Structure formats: C-alpha cells, structure tokens
C-alpha cells in the first residue's frame, strides 16, 4: 500500500513537472556553482515565471558550436566579448529585444544580440602589506625595481590573460612588444587560468596578480580584509563585459524573452555584485552596495569591439609570446 501511494505520488510529481515549462540556460561553471550568482538568480526568476529554470554548467561556445541547431539551450549566459564574433557568425543567436538605454556601462553599448549583465575593469591587484607604491602604468611597471613581481594568466588559455594583451595593444599599439620586453622581468610566472594565479597571490607567492578592479570588494565585504587593492593605471583600463544571449532555435521563446528582461531588472542586478564580485550592468552607482561605490575606479575605460579585437588578437598574443620567451 505504502509503495503504491509512493508510486502515485511520484507519478503526480512527474506529471506536474512535465506541465511546468523548462527554461534551459547554459552557464559557466563558476556562475552556476553554489558560491556564484546562479542559485539566487534561479530562485528569483522561478518566483515570477511559473517555470523551471535549469542551469547547465560547462564550456559555453565550444559546446554550442558542437551541438549547432540541435542544442537544448534556450539562453546562454556568461559569454564574453572575445567570443561574440564567432558566436554571432554561427547564426545560433537571436536579437535580445531589450532597450540598451537602461545599461549603466562606461561605454556605449548598441549590440542587439549580446546583452551585458555585469562588467569590471581588468587590473593588477596588489597586497598593500608588501607593496607601498604600486605602478601607475605599464611603463612604470617596466621601470619598477626588479623585486616587484606579478603573476599573470596566459592569453592563449584564459580570457583575463587575453584581455591583458589587448589592453596593452590598445594603449601602446606598435610599441606593445617593447612594453612587454620591459615588463617581462617582473612576471614571476604565467598560469593557465585565473584561479591558479589568484591562489598563488593569496598564498603570498607574489605581491601582485592580474585580476579585476572589483576583486578587492570580496576581501573587504566577505573577509573584512582591506589589504588587497587594485593598482589604477593612468592610461585607463580594459573593460571586461559578461554577456547573455537568446538562442534563435529556442522552444521557449516567451520564457527566454522574459529572462532577457529579467537580466536588466533590479532584482537580478542587485544579486550580481556580491555573488559575482563585479559591477552590475544596469544599476545606477548610487544603488550599488557601498563597498563597490567606494572602490577606486580608473578614469578611462578602454575597450576593443569584436572586430577590432579579432584583427589585433593574433598579433597581440604573438608579441607577448615573443617578448616573454626571450
């Protein structure tokens, strides 16, 4: 009898599930993890959509390109500007249909397919107990005493590493290789991804690491530690955007549209800063958590759009590789 009740319950539960529409969202692993923004966003959206939002973690673009039109994704969140050209050319994405006037970014955003949901500036983060006067430009870093060491990420395997070489290329153009040759003695080592580099930094292996201007917010808000600061460069900082896009072949177009609108809502935007440790993309500064308002920010945002970055990328990486292989 008990088994029968249980089976009946299971049956009702599964039919109930079958009637709830499912919105499948591909997202990077850090996004969906218990310590990322995913769980709070899932709960907030499900409270209003009458649907089941399912995050599927993993590689975004490689996976989508392998799946092509047969993908089960309705929405993809967590793309970045380095892959938008390839993503756009695939024809797998549909216009987002949102008013980009609501965005509060340091640059004008007019893309009608990829919609930013957060952003930050790429920067070096240093330990104030080990470094009194941080460099204020790449040239100052090159001229710094030899014992100023920094850990960076490889532009061939990491998006922040790629943003770094594009930053140098955008500021210094033809002088980039010369700048890299000057900076090279200060580079302690190069890691595969951000986590390895940041782990080495917090372990004290180097006084400075390539990260984001918003990284210190985590240490201040979560750990009460104000010894981690971003070194602000006078020449400006490369702006890093994370994007969301609607899949053209979605079988839940209304839900996908609702999610795109939800991304720009205050609910979503207020979840971002203290779960993703980055700036929200559509929230006035006055509404940011205090710790984010207080962070030092660069005077100038540098950004290469997808065509500019595609044109410069191979050259920028090769100059970096040559200079650091000496």
């Amino acid at each position: 009898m008990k088994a029968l009740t249980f089976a009946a319950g299971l049956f009702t539960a599964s039919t109930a599930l079958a009637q709830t529409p499912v919105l499948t969202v591909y997202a990077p692993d850090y996004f969906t993890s218990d310590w990322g923004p995913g769980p709070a966003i899932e709960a907030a959206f499900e409270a209003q959509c009458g649907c089941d939002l399912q995050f599927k973690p993993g590689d975004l673009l490689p996976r989508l390109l392998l799946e092509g039109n047969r993908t089960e994704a309705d929405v993809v969140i967590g793309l970045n500007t380095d892959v938008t050209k390839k993503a756009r050319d695939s024809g797998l994405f549909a216009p987002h249909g949102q008013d980009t006037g609501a965005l509060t970014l340091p640059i004008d955003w007019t893309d009608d397919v990829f919609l930013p949901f957060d952003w930050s500036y790429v920067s070096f983060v240093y330990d104030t107990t080990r470094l009194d006067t941080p460099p204020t430009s790449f040239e100052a870093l090159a001229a710094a005493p030899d014992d100023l060491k920094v850990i960076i990420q490889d532009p061939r395997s990491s998006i922040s590493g790629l943003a770094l070489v594009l930053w140098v290329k955008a500021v210094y153009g033809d002088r980039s290789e010369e700048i890299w040759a000057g900076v090279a003695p200060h580079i302690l080592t190069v890691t595969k991804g951000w986590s390895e580099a940041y782990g080495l930094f917090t372990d004290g292996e180097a006084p400075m690491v390539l990260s984001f201007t918003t990284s210190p917010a985590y240490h201040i808000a979560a750990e009460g530690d104000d010894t981690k600061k971003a070194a602000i460069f006078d020449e400006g900082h490369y702006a890093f955007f994370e994007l969301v896009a609607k899949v053209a072949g979605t079988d839940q177009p209304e839900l996908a549209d609702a999610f795109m609108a939800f991304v720009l809502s205050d609910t979503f935007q207020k979840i971002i800063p203290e779960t993703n440790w980055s700036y929200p993309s559509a929230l006035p500064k006055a509404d940011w958590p205090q710790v984010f308002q207080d962070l030092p920010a660069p005077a100038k945002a540098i950004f290469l759009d997808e065509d500019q970055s595609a044109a410069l990328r191979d050259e920028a990486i090769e100059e970096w590789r040559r200079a650091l292989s000496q």
Partner: protein
Amino acid sequence: MAARAVAIIAALAVAGLILGPVAAVLARAGDMPVPGPADWQALRFTLTQAILSAGASVALAVPTARALARRRFPGRGLLITLLGAPFILPTIVAVLGLLAVFGNKGLLNLALGGLGVPPMSIYGLHGVVLAHVFFNLPLATRMILQGWLAIPSERLRLAASLGLSPVQVFRALELPMLQRITPQAFVVIFVICLSSFAVALTLGGGPRSTTLELAIYQSLRFDFDIARAAMLALVQLAIALTAGSVALWLGRAPGFGVGLDRDLPRWEDGALTRVLLDTLWIVAATLFLLTPLAMVVWNGIGAVLTLPAQVWQAALHSLGVALASTLLCMIWATALANRMGEWLALAGIALSPLVLGIGLFLLVRPFANPFDLALVVTALINALVSLPFAVRILRPESEAIRTDHIRLAQALGLSPGVWVTRVFLPRLRRPLGFAAGLTAALSMGDLGVIALFADPDHATLPLQIYRLMGAYRMDQAAGAAVLLLGLSLGLFWLFDRGGRADAAT
C-alpha cells in the same frame, strides 16, 4: 580459452574507447593543417621536459625503492602509502603545496634567507622537472619496489649461500630485474608528462614552457579549431605509442621463472655504510615528497570542519565514481595484464583528455543527453586513464603466476573458474590491492572530461575545489583539498592494505 576471450573483449573495449572518439573528431575536423613553427617549438619543449622528467623520476626511484626493499623499520608500510600521495592530488593543489616549499616565499627560500644565501627561483625548466618528479617519483618507486619484491626469495638465499658480494648480487639478480621494469616505468611517466600543461606552464614561468597540450586547449576552447587540435593530438598519440613500443622491446627479457611461491625473509644486509646510505635515501625522499603535502594539510586543516554541505555531498559523489572506476579498471587490467595489453593501455593516457572528451561528446550526443551521463562517463574515463598504471603493476606478477602454476593447473585439469579464484587471484592479491588503491585515489582526484560532461546536480570534489577557488574562497578550497587528500589516501590505504594483509610488505 575463456581467458583469451575476456582479454580480447577487454582489448577491443580499450581500442574502441580511444579510436571511436578519435574517429568522431577526425570526421568533424575536415582537412588538417600542417604544424607551424610555434607547434614545432612546443613539440621540442614537450619532449625535452617529458624525457628529463621521466629520466629523473626513474633514476631517483631506483635507489629509493632499493632502500625501501632492503630496510625494515616501524611505520614503513604507512610511509610507503603516504609517499604515493603526490601522484593522486589534483594538480592545482599539488602545485600550491610545492610552491609553499620551493616557491619565492617558500620554506626553502626562507631557510636560505636565514643563512644569508640569495633566494633560488623555482621557475624554469628545472622547476617543471622538479614538479614532475614530485608527482611521479612515488609511482616509479612503487613500480620498481614491486620488481624487487617479485625476485623469488629462493634466488636471494641461493646468492647468500654462494657468498656472492653485493656487486655480484646486483649483476645477477637486480640488474636483470631493473632492465625489465625501468623502461616501462620510464615510458608511463614520459607519457603522463607529454600531456602536462598547467603544471609545465606555471612552474616553467611563461610561454617558453608551452606544451602541445596547451596548444590543443587553445585550439579547442578558444579558437574552436578542431582540425588543429586533432592534428596536435595525433602527433602526441604517435609519440606516446612509439615510446611504448620501444619500452616493450627494451623490457622484453624473461622473468625469473619458477620459485617456490613462499614468502621468505628478504636478505639482511647489515654493512654500516649501506645502512646509512639507504637511510639517507629514505629520509631525503620522504622530506621531498611529504613537506609539500604537509604544507597543503597545514594550510587547509583549519577549514575542513567549516566546509559547506555541498562539499561533503560532492565528496560522496566522488567516492561513488572512484569505486565504480576501480571495479571496472581492475576487471579490465586483470584481463589485459600482458605485453599487448600494456602497449594498448598506454593509449588511455596518450590521447589528449580534451580531444577524448570532445570525441565522446560527439559520439554520445545523437543518442543521449551528455549532462545525464556525466558521472558514468567520468567513471569510465577515470578507469581508462588508470589502466596503464594498473596493467603495469599487475603484469609482472600475473605473468609469473601463469608461468609458475600453469603446469600444475594443466596436470590437475583445473577449470578456468577454479584457476582464477583459487590460484590466480589469491596470488595476485598484493599488486591487485595496490593497483585498486591507485585507481581509486586517481579517480577521486581526477577532473576527467568534466568540461563537456558536467552534471548540474552531482558535482565531484575536485570540481568543487575549483569552484571555491573561482569564487575567491581560497581558504575553503584549501580545506576541501585536505578532505580530498584524506579520502584519496584513505581509499588507497584500504585497498593497498587489503592486498597485503597477510604479508610483511
């Protein structure tokens, strides 16, 4: 006859799991490019570091294993278990531990600074080799130690009663054993180091230390250039299988033949200089391998009890995956414990894991949702990549048992079932326990092909460590690493102990 059929099925399964994904990737890839100058440079560096790393690991493992084979001291069994730990840690954790000792602000430079000696930089080719030796010395030591323990004790007694000098014993008994064992140990480590990427880059200090695997990663994850990735992966596979063939040929000498199948006390060599030398080797290897681990534990132990529930759940998933992988791998390895099997099993670690992942994804995708199969695929891949180690460990004893007892079995007309359960498996117990322990521990620590087969609801422990790090929670990540280390070592110890429950070794 039945054994032969099982061996053929096992061999086909391995070949299918390698060739299937390769074929799927090639079909998708189209025309392959020719390697460019940067690829040749990466190939050169990859080969250089792999040869140096494997050579140094084996060269250092010989005296270490010899010392461990000759000496008896309290805690020896525990030490042998602990020495295996570096091999089973996720690379990121091991690298942090290694740098806590050898890095810029590590213990070594702290000590040198205290003595007024200028600091030593770990970053460079020497750092890459040091890290690879740290990972692989334990494996090499255990493989070679097995070789020493497999020398029939009757031979040693005979040598002693003939009054042979240590040099004569070495030439008559130990050298032939080393000639059979070391080429295989070398090639397994060489192939592991071929696909090194994160370790080589971080310890190498920059793009000078670019390996083929980095180029494959870049092609697949960044450029989505499958053709280039496939070309590079085939180059890597060809190198590994060539090296495997050479090693098989070098290690082709026959074993020691029939012994009386009794555990007898090993030889006692009490000359003071040799006791001191052995002690020195054991102490040096212990310090080298265990200090970085002690740093990992020191940095994380405080956070273990504060770990969130999701980490403990992930630990359970990982245990399940590890046990499934172990069972599968042991069946596979027992069937493949022969020359051909050893060569074939090498392919499991010779194919770039990224390419293997993409290939499996392409194969599975038309029939099932890869998300649902994540843990199954992970268990399967973990078994596949542990196979070369398991086969290497099982083969010497497995072949010895066959040579020693097959005449008895034929004379008595034993059925295959009785042969396996009464004769074969009981005698294979020690290496089987060791191989199972190694597989279980490796599967706990391995990230597998998780990038394309990530289960949204069942994260594994290594994945949670990466997630904690990605969310700035470095302290909790360190705690989770200690948990992983504890569980891996625990599994390893259980199996390994189980295998030598009634032996003095």
